[in-house]
C-alpha cells in the first residue's frame, strides 16, 4: 500500500534579497506517514515546518528530494485530489458566507448539485457552524474561521488532511473543538499531517511526531517511544502513605493494603523533549 505522505531527502533553499549565500530552509528532511496515521511536525518558528508542508502541496518547488502523496508526485495537480489543506491564519473571502465558501471550494473539486449541497450541510454541522452558515465570513470569530477552514479542507472527502497551526490564535475552547475534530478524523481513518506550537495538543492527538530544528529533522518516532525514559522505572501506587513510598520496593510484597497498579518507564513531557532537542540542544 502507498504511503499517505512520502518525503525523502527534501532540500529547499531560498535566496533572500541582499544575501549572497542561499538560505537553506529545509535540509534533507524525510517524513513517511502511513494511511490513517496522525503525524505532528513540531519546531520553533522559522525551522522549516511550513516550507515542508508547502513543498508537499506543490506551492514551493524542492531543490532536491521527493515529495509524494499516496504515491503521486506532489508537483502534479492530480495529487491534490486527495488532499485538504488548512493554512496558518487563513482569511478566506470575507464577502462569502460559510456555506458559499464551502460551495466554492466544492465546485473547484468537481462537486456539484445535490451531492454538494448535502456535503455542505454535513460539514457545517461537523464543525458546529450550521447556524452561522449563512453569515458572511467577515463577521466570523477567529475560532469560527479556523473551523470553516477545516471544513473547506474536508470538502472533497480527502484521504489526507494537512493542517498548519490549526489552533493558532484560537481560545482554549475553540482549540479543544479543533482537537476533537482531529480525533474524529482519526477515527474515520483520515491521515492527518499537522504542525502546531501547542505541544500538549500534539501529544494528545498524534501517533508519531517529528521535531524539526533549523531545517533538519532532529528526532522522529512514535510518541510513546519518544517520551519514554529507558533507564528508569515508574511505580504507580494507590492509597500509599509517604513512608510507604520510601520503603516501597521492600514493602510491596509484604504489605497487603497497598496495590501495585502499574510499573514501567516514567515519561518526560513533549514540551521538555522539544526544548531539549531545539533551544537547549548543545551541538549545533
Amino acid at each position, binding site marked *: 500500500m*502507498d504511503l499517505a505522505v512520502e518525503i525523502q531527502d527534501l532540500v529547499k533553499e531560498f535566496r533572500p534579497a541582499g544575501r549572497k549565500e542561499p538560505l537553506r530552509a529545509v535540509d534533507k528532511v524525510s517524513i513517511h506517514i502511513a494511511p490513517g496515521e496522525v503525524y505532528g511536525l513540531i519546531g520553533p518558528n522559522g525551522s522549516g515546518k511550513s516550507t515542508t508542508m*508547502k513543498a508537499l*502541496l*506543490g*506551492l*514551493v*518547488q524542492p531543490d532536491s528530494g521527493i515529495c509524494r502523496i*499516496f*504515491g*503521486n508526485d506532489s508537483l502534479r*495537480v*492530480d*495529487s*491534490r*485530489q*486527495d*488532499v*485538504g*489543506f*488548512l*493554512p*496558518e*491564519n*487563513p*482569511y*478566506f*473571502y470575507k*464577502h*462569502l458566507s460559510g456555506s458559499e465558501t464551502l460551495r*466554492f*471550494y466544492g*465546485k*473547484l*473539486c*468537481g462537486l456539484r448539485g445535490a451531492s454538494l449541497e448535502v456535503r455542505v450541510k454535513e460539514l457545517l454541522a461537523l464543525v458546529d457552524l450550521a447556524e452561522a452558515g449563512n453569515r458572511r465570513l467577515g463577521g466570523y470569530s477567529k475560532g469560527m474561521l479556523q473551523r470553516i*477552514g477545516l471544513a*473547506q*479542507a474536508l470538502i*472533497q472527502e480527502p484521504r489526507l488532511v*494537512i493542517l498548519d497551526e490549526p489552533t493558532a490564535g484560537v481560545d482554549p475552547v475553540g482549540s479543544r473543538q479543533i482537537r476533537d475534530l482531529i480525533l474524529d478524523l482519526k477515527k474515520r481513518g483520515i491521515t492527518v499531517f499537522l504542525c502546531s506550537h501547542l505541544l500538549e495538543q500534539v501529544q494528545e492527538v498524534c501517533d508519531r511526531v517529528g521535531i524539526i530544528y533549523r531545517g533538519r529533522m532532529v528526532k522522529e518516532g512514535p510518541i510513546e517511544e519518544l517520551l519514554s525514559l529507558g533507564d528508569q522505572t515508574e511505580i504507580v501506587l494507590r492509597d500509599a502513605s509517604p513512608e510507604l513510598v520510601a520503603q516501597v520496593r521492600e514493602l510491596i510484597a509484604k504489605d497487603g493494603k497497598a496495590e501495585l497498579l502499574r510499573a514501567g518507564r516514567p515519561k518526560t513531557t513533549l514540551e521538555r523533549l522539544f526544548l531539549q532537542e531545539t533551544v537547549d540542544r548543545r551541538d549545533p
Partner: protein
Amino acid sequence: MSRPAKNRPLNPRRIGVIAGHTFTQLVRMKVFYFLAIFAVIILGSNVFNIQDIGRPDLEGMDVLRMIRSTSLGTMTLFSVVMGVVATALLLPKDVEDRTLYTILAKPVPRLDYLLGKLGGVLLLIFVSLLVMDLLMTGVLAVRTQMVLSEQAARVAEWPKAEQEALFAEIRSQGATWSIHGAVVAVFLRAAVIASTALLLSTISTSTLFTTITSFVVYFIGNFQSDAREFFLGGASGGISPLAKMAGLAVAVVFPDFQQFNVIDTVIEGQPFLASDIGALAGIALFYVVLHSFVSWLVFAGKEF
C-alpha cells in the same frame, strides 16, 4: 500507485467557477455603484442640453452627439480603470490573504486560476457595458424621437426628399448598430488592458506597481503607432529589416490601442462595419491569448 481523477488544464467548468466567484467578489465590492454614476451622467448630459432642441441651426443633432460622446467616453474610462485596477488588485490580494494557498491546494491548475480571475473581471466589464449600452440606447431613442418631431415641424415646407435626407441624418446620430459596435470595441480594448494587468501582476507582487505600469503601457499603446510612423515611415531610403523587426516587437509588447479608437468616427455618425469588429476581435484575442500564456509561464514557476 493510486490513480486520482485527471485534472487537465483549461477545464471550462473550473474556470467558470473561479470567474463566477471573481465576478461576485467585485460586485460585493460595490463596483456596480459606478452604474448609478453613469446613469446620472447620461441623464445629466441629457437635461443640460435640453435648450439646444430649440436651436434650429443645430438641428438637434448636437444633443444626440453629446449623449453618444459622453456615454462612450464614460464607458471607456470605466472599462479601462476597472480592467487595470480590478485585475491588479485581485491576484496580490489572494496571495496576501493566503486564500491562494487554499485554492492551489485543491486540484486547480494554475492556468485555470489565472483565466478564471481574468474571466471574472471581463464578465463584470461586459455586464456593466451592457447595462450602460442599454441605458444609452434608451436615452438616445427617446431623444431621437424628440429631435425628429421638433425638426418635422420646422421643415414641414421642405421638399419630401430633403426632409427624408435630414431625418436619415438625425437617425444616424441616434441609437445605431454602429454605436453598439463601438461599445464592443470599448470592451475589446478593456480585455486587452486587463490581460496586460494580469501579466504584470504575475511578475510584480505590488498592486501599485501593477496599476501604474499598466496605465503606462496603455499610454504608450495609444501613441506607439504614431511613433512607429514617425521613426519608420519617415526614414529615407526604405526601412531596414532590423528596424521593421524592432517595430513589430514594440507592437507585440505594447498593444496598439489606437486601433480600438473607433469611438470618434462613430460619434460623427460614420458606420462601423461588422468586418471592422471582426478584425478588432481578432487583434484583441491575439493579445489576450499572448498575455495569458506569458502570465501562465511566469505564474507556473512562482512559489508562495
